[in-house]
């Protein structure tokens, strides 16, 4: 069992938790993920490591409450335990030799992007961060991003904070103005990463996307997380989760991510009703 050391709400639908998992904490690096199972009935879900402390053995996860499994997790409090917490899984994000980078994060993907930004910043790389949210009340980790970035751009879809529009707007603007990067790293919704990849492809800027397909075991034994990259089938849990964004078949990935849409909608409804009953 793995104890919840800290729980904090970052916005109405995003929660931060620190989990006591010393074996994971001593090994995890930016870009890697864990698989957790909240309780005995629970589903195994992948979440990216948002930070870890080797001294205390705490691993930080940040998740959006979107469905049954994340609702179950979010119902747990500090001091309570989750059943399973496995990792670190996947390969760390490659940062070696990068002098100038742009990290593009969207929504809860920003939580995953932050450790990458920090690692780049600490090794002396010049970092531009572009983050995007639907609206002002969903913004997370702004101060943390600012502290680790040389340049910082905030975007909201509705213009309620920062600049109005999606993250590809400022990215395109920079590229059009002649800005170059050794690497663009993008983490967020598939549709956002697809458009970031399209934008940088024109300028031949090496671009990495952190993929987030459906997973079960996370160790390469089922292929549930398979993607097409450069015409070849890859397993995101062991070959990734980072891939060359210019080679990823995003359209296929988006369709595959909806395999269980109907089940998920039902599970969400069931959970909502359950929580409503408990509240009454």
């Amino acid at each position, binding site marked *: 069992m793995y104890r919840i050391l800290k729980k904090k709400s970052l916005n109405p639908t995003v929660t931060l938790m620190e989990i006591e998992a010393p*074996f*994971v904490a001593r*090994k995890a690096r930016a870009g890697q993920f864990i698989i957790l*199972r909240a309780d005995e*009935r*629970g*589903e*195994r879900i992948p979440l990216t490591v948002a930070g870890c402390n080797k001294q205390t053995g705490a691993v930080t996860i940040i998740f959006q409450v979107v469905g*049954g*499994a994340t609702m*179950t997790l979010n119902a747990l409090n500090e001091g309570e335990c989750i*059943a*399973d*917490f*496995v*990792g*670190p*899984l996947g390969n760390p994000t490659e940062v070696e030799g990068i002098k100038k980078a742009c990290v593009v994060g969207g929504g809860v993907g920003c939580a995953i992007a932050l450790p990458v930004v920090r690692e780049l910043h600490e090794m002396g790389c010049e970092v531009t961060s572009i983050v995007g949210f639907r609206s002002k009340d969903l913004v997370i980790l702004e101060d943390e991003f600012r502290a680790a970035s040389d340049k910082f751009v905030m975007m909201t879809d509705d213009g309620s904070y920062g600049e109005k529009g999606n993250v590809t707007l400022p990215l395109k603007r920079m590229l059009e103005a002649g800005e170059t990067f050794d690497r663009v790293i993008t983490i967020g919704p598939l549709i956002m990463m697809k458009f970031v990849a399209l934008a940088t492809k024109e300028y031949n800027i090496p671009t990495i996307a952190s993929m987030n397909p459906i997973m*079960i*075991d996370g*160790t*390469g*034994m*089922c*292929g*549930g997380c*398979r*993607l*097409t990259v450069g015409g070849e*089938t890859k397993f995101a849990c*062991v070959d990734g989760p980072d891939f060359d964004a210019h080679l990823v078949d995003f359209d*296929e990935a988006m*369709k*595959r991510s*909806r*395999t*269980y849409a109907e*089940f*998920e909608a039902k*599970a969400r409804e069931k959970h909502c009703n359950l929580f409503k009953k408990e509240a009454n």
Partner: protein
Amino acid sequence: MAKFNMDPKKHPMPSQDPLVRNKNFKEVALGYDEETAIDEAKRCLNCKNQPCVAGCPVNVAIPEFIALVAEGKFEEAYQVIARTSSLPAVCGRVCPQETQCEGKCTRGIKGEPVGIGRLERFVADWHNSHATQAPAKPVPNGHKVAIVGSGPAGLTCAGDLAKLGYDVTVFEALHLAGGVLVYGIPEFRLPKAIVEKEVDNLKALGVKVMTDMVIGKVLTIDELKEEFGFEAVFLGTGAGLPRFMNIPGENAKGVFSANEYLTRSNLMKAYEPDSETPIFHAKKVAVVGGGNVAMDAARSAKRLGADVVYIVYRRSEAELPARREEVEHAKEEEIVFKLLTNPVEVLADSDDNVVGLRCIEMELGEPDASGRRRPIEKKGSEFTMDVDCVIMALGTSPNPLLKKTTQGLDTKPRGEIVADENGKTSLDGVYAGGDAVTGAATVILAMGAGKTAAKAMDEYIRSKA
């Protein structure tokens, strides 16, 4: 009372009715009662040369335990089996006895062999539901060993070393111990409560089981040896990497590896309505492959509510690699066999949902290197099967994860760990066995390999002490 029962046939196994059981996940075979077990045990002639024992990869003292069953001494019979086998309730259910112990039985020459598997199962189940006394804990010998993987090979190796007094820790990547016994073989063939009971029996011997530990990621083999002081390590990591066909449309929604489908159903219990894990409820399913895994996937799909389930296999019935009994069970449960048929493309609609499987008919040519007749495509024979789900059960290879993080561990091109006949690998103090070494094989062969490696590890540690 006659000493022997000379009936040429073995007692049939009471089973659930096929058309009832294909709608539930309860165990198909119900097992012998005490009276039937005693009567079946009396069919054993207690031959002098004991060919059955030689046919068992872990050399259970078969005539000895069966003689005790015939006398109604069930717990004593269990203790005889437990001397050499760590998982009798599992083996009695899933071993292909027809090619092992029962295949060698003298009674099988002029009739049916003694139901050795059924008797082993009866004895193990009797013990698990009647035994109250905890087994005596072995005297510790002060040496620490690590087992990577808690499948049949790892559990057997762990059990044997614990009995010798070793301080044994088993590291398992998933959240439950058992390997293929929990994620692969369905509940209706091997109830998970039975696997759990066998693992508990090992824990009672002092074996520690650490789940959620992906060795190669969270800890390396070197760290296990140097940092944590394990004097020898056994790698029983299996062959869990699924193969795909690399045909067009294979990544459409509704195409799964059998590993994924079965893991969702068995390990995550997605067949139960209150499980949080989703599973694809298809109406028309094609399972590609002809092994036991294909039968398990097909029979699971039927139980999950499919109207029609096809087994699509490129050779003929005679070459089906699955156990005969599993093929018969599948047929009884109305699984449809499309033999001499090979898929060429998965068809999908504009939203990438599977809507069909394009296949070609095959005919058998000359025998290939494996001795089986090679299937050859019949030109112009392409046709489309109307399905909404395709499950690929084409076999598996060892997972490359351990190889990637372990310097100096020699492997073959397909990923199998190179080990000698005692399980010794290219690394000092590191042993391996089961599917990780042979590629996908059987539960009992993995157990035999675990047993052999345990003996070699004991000798290795004693030679250093």
